[in-house]
């Protein structure tokens, strides 16, 4: 009798707890669960993981991926993707470094002019890749897959041709000191840049009508067009913005490395798409939230950092990353099934 009462009282809350978990999963997606698991696992594996200093490290290291993922998210939202983000990083790094170095060589006392022109040149060069992507996708109906894959090859070739495969040196030391290693209120400079970009994109996406256009174009291109939205313009702008974000990340990485390199960013296409997908951005377009993508990029940084501390070999790390990406997609499918049954 007493036993009976005890079991009924324990099963009732348990059922509601699993129901709660299910609702939480539907609302938030797989990411919060993965984050909790990752933190618990790595804390157990390494004493150095859960320290303020290490977490700041994670943040600083994830910043580049985070900025690239912001742009990648826009491409995914409109139902496409951008495989050329890695190349854009390389091109902006190479062109930026060469511009900066040559201006600095001509006018050694105008350090800040060199830095300004270098950044401008690098970001413009990277953005041009996006302009070409945008023209192809929006106006010639080339599939984003082919367009960005083609441009990835074109861009990488140009970057190698310009440098002959050798790193570009000769930038002013101030550039690396400020944008690579500088801090403000104890927080690294690249983090400040990322915070600014996230805030600006958040306002643009959710507080202006233009942000809604990205969701509309990915949600239903035809409906968006019949509702008076300039769909071609939106698509074009998507790839330009995506490239601009990647180019800014390229310049920040250049500052950190102190050299312009054609070989940076090779892992960016996969990692940025993974960050978005783990964050619940739909590959079919029209679905995904900015704040989740920020968390998604942080999560990937966290996992890489944790695996380094746990001394997991770098070859095995790529295995883990790929597996996580597939797991996220499967989880998303399961979530869609739950959404259909819960409806809200």
């Amino acid at each position, binding site marked *: 009798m007493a036993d009976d009462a005890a079991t009924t009282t324990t099963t009732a809350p348990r059922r509601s707890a699993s129901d709660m978990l299910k609702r939480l999963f539907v609302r938030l997606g797989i990411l919060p669960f993965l984050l909790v698991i990752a933190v618990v696992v790595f804390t157990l594996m390494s004493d150095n993981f859960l320290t303020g200093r290490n977490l700041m490290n994670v943040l600083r290291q994830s910043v580049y991926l985070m900025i690239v993922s912001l742009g990648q998210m826009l491409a995914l939202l409109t139902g496409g993707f951008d495989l050329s983000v890695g190349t854009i990083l390389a091109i902006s790094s190479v062109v930026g470094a060469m511009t900066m170095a040559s201006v600095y060589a001509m006018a050694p006392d105008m350090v800040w002019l060199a830095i300004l022109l270098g950044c401008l040149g690098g970001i413009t060069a990277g953005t041009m890749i996006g302009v070409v992507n945008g023209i192809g996708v929006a106006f010639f109906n080339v599939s984003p897959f082919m367009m960005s894959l083609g441009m990835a090859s074109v861009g990488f070739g140009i970057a190698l041709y310009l440098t002959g495969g050798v790193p570009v040196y000769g930038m002013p030391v101030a550039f690396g000191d400020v944008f690579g290693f500088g801090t403000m209120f104890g927080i690294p400079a690249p983090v400040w840049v990322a915070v600014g970009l996230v805030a600006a994109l958040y306002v643009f996406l959710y507080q202006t009508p233009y942000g809604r256009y990205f969701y509309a174009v990915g949600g239903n291109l035809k*409906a968006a067009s019949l509702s*008076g939205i300039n769909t071609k313009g939106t698509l074009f702008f998507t790839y330009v913005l995506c490239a601009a974000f990647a180019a800014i990340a390229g310049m920040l990485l250049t500052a950190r490395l102190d050299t312009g390199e054609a070989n940076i960013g090779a892992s960016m296409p996969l990692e940025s798409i993974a960050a978005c997908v783990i964050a619940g951005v739909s590959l079919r377009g*029209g679905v995904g939230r900015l704040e989740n993508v920020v968390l998604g990029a942080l999560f990937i940084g966290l996992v890489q950092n944790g695996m380094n501390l746990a001394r997991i070999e770098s070859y095995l790390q790529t295995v883990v990353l790929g597996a996580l990406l597939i797991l996220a997609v499967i989880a998303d499918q399961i979530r869609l099934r739950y959404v259909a*049954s819960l409806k809200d």
Partner: protein
Amino acid sequence: MNTSLHHDAGAQAQDARPLIETRAVTKDYPGVRALDGVDFELRPGEVHVLFGENGAGKSTLISILAGANQPSSGTIKVRGEDTHLGSVHEARELGISAVFQEFSLIPQMTVAENLFLGAEHARYGLLDKKRLRREAETILDELGFHIAPDQTVDHLTRAEQQMVEIAKAFRDELSVLILDEPTASLTNHETDQLFKLIGELTARGVGIVYITHRMAEIRRIGDRITVLRDGHYIDTVDANTTSEDELVRLMTGRMVGAIFPQISFKPGEEVLRVEGLTTPDDAVRDVSLNVRAGEIVGFAGLVGSGKSETMQACFGARPASAGQVTYKGEAINGASPGANIRRGFLYLPADRRTEGLMMMRSVRENMSLAALDAKQVRNGPFLSRAGEVAMVSELADRLNLSPNRVERAVDHFSGGNQQKAMLARSLTRDFDLIVFDEPTVGVDVGTRASIYEFIAGLAGQGVAVVLISSDLPEILHMSNRAYVFYRGAVQAELPASELTEENVLSHFFEREAA
């Protein structure tokens, strides 16, 4: 137009054992009971119509009959014996086949390959293509379908694809054929052909389960009607003696007077004038017409007659090669949809799923989509979320969105409510000309009545309305003037006094436009 094929077939089948029946069938989905203790029986040689609003449980019932879904409780009997229909395949072997609204054809394959998909003939493990083709030809011939077995499916018209889908059902011995709104995309001629086939099948003793929203079809081919409401069985009635009002009462559970509202038109000044409009693909040829404020102008004609394409070209959603389009005295040739919407001219497309709605986005975002640059939802360069929410919730109340949850994804609403979410766009800013393209396709009678009232209300406020419809009663009752289209050209303009069924129909096919 009336055939009486079904009368004798129905009579001789009166006392035969049911081909298939369900007893107290219930189907539960998480959180929803889609069917609740439904009894249904199908006799040999009858056309048994399933009737009910969207979401009444018709689709669930036929998916159970076809073996695609299994009931949570209750029994299914096939020819009097308890049977478990575990899969579509099992049902097929018992002669039960279904043709759903969404086709299960592979567009890149040929007709013959599609017919035998999943049951290919093989010899020594290799495909026996000759036999495949021969048997496909036999089936098509037997059914009187003039389709070449080697044709790839994506080159066929929608009606021909439907025929291939039906022919697929004949691969095995057929005793029960389930048709889910088969005429939704067929022209009148193709519909006639389908009905002739249904007549031949019933004469052979095949039982047909038929889902439709169209009263005229029920009259024409139906023998009995089973009405479902909210997953419950309501009644089974005789198709030939039950009045339309009675059916609507059974379906909605309330007395419904006329579906169509009384409208008194006060046509004002001319809002749209079209002269000699032609499109490069010849879908529209030399069309001239005009629309006035406060009137509803009906556009009638067959599928592909140019009635939709004309307004799409005016709206800027389709290129025009010649002609003059004047909106309130201003030439708008070549203007984009966006520019036209800002002028006060809106076109609402016919196919809400592919052209109208972002299915996985919320009702709120779908309703406000065409008004994102309007003052109401703007706050300088920013979006005013408060203004948007206020506008959308007011519209949801006004249109009786059910359930009234504007943040829920449109995909999770019934067809009628999805349609409301799209039609609500016409109220998000002050439009002077609104084009409704097939506003009631796939919408239940209850919602249809409210959509008609809604459109009449707009015209009453002085909005110029164009109503494009393949549903003849809709044109006859709703418009004060109609243009009949035929092969891309205006065949006739009919003023209210000449707006009769015979008049409109006589222009559907008659003489080439001179």
